[in-house]
């Protein structure tokens, strides 16, 4: 039990680290597009790592000896991971395209941050 606790904690900590990096990037980067770089990528891996940690915890702590509907929870979490992998880049791309179409100018090196 201790081993699974350690592994799950590592997953959650890594996920939180990447989410935090995304937030710092959102605050530090100079313009709309580069901010999307930070959030679009860090969010994906951060969320996936957190859900993976929850999945492992459920698989080893709650699932043994439980009824079938409880045993299916890790499968649902797995579906969540797959959908995040599909939806997150698509949403990032959609926001990016909308900004580009409305004429938001990309920041160039040496300009003032916006």
């Amino acid at each position, binding site marked *: 039990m201790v081993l699974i606790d350690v592994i799950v904690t590592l997953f959650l900590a890594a996920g939180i680290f990447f989410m935090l990096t995304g937030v710092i990037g959102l605050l530090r980067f100079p313009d709309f597009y580069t901010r*999307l770089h930070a959030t679009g990528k860090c969010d*994906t*891996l951060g969320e996936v790592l957190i859900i993976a940690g929850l999945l492992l915890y459920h698989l080893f702590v709650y699932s043994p000896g439980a009824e079938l509907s409880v045993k299916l929870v890790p499968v649902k979490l797995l579906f969540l991971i797959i959908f995040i992998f599909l939806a997150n880049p698509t949403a990032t791309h959609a926001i990016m395209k909308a900004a580009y179409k409305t004429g938001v100018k990309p920041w160039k090196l040496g300009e003032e941050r916006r």
Partner: protein
Amino acid sequence: MNAKSGKGFGILVTFCALFLFWLLLSGIFDALHVGAGIICSAIIALISHDLLVKEKGDKMLSKSFKFVIYLGWELWQIVLANFDVAYRVLHPKMPIDPLIIEFDTSLRSDFALVTLANSITLTPGTITIDIKDGKFLVHAIAKKPADALLVDKTMQNKVADVFMEW
């Protein structure tokens, strides 16, 4: 394979996928829930099977197999991408130099284009802005990731290999 049996195959595959999904999500196996699942899956499969299965059955298996291998490589690229962004965010001088690049691909099918676009968005330092007739518009955060797409073309070649569209 003629067109008619191809259509039946498409409906069958869609129905099986939907029904499996229903069973996994509901987790209740009495007659009412399973019956409702069968009816719903059948209706949706009849209406929208052409969204999921477009082409005929041949080459589907080898393509799916290659796709799974590609996903493994892609997963590793995502981890690299996150470390790349984390480095750029946390570095005191913020080593970024954004630019917008444009390039052509030989890919034509929707699924291949979507795969490449999402892969570009998830891998280090690049986000897809727009696709028009196989022409990609990509925002890169620095010169190096842009060169990876323009010069090396590792990703384009991998995706083309998976979908057999050179």
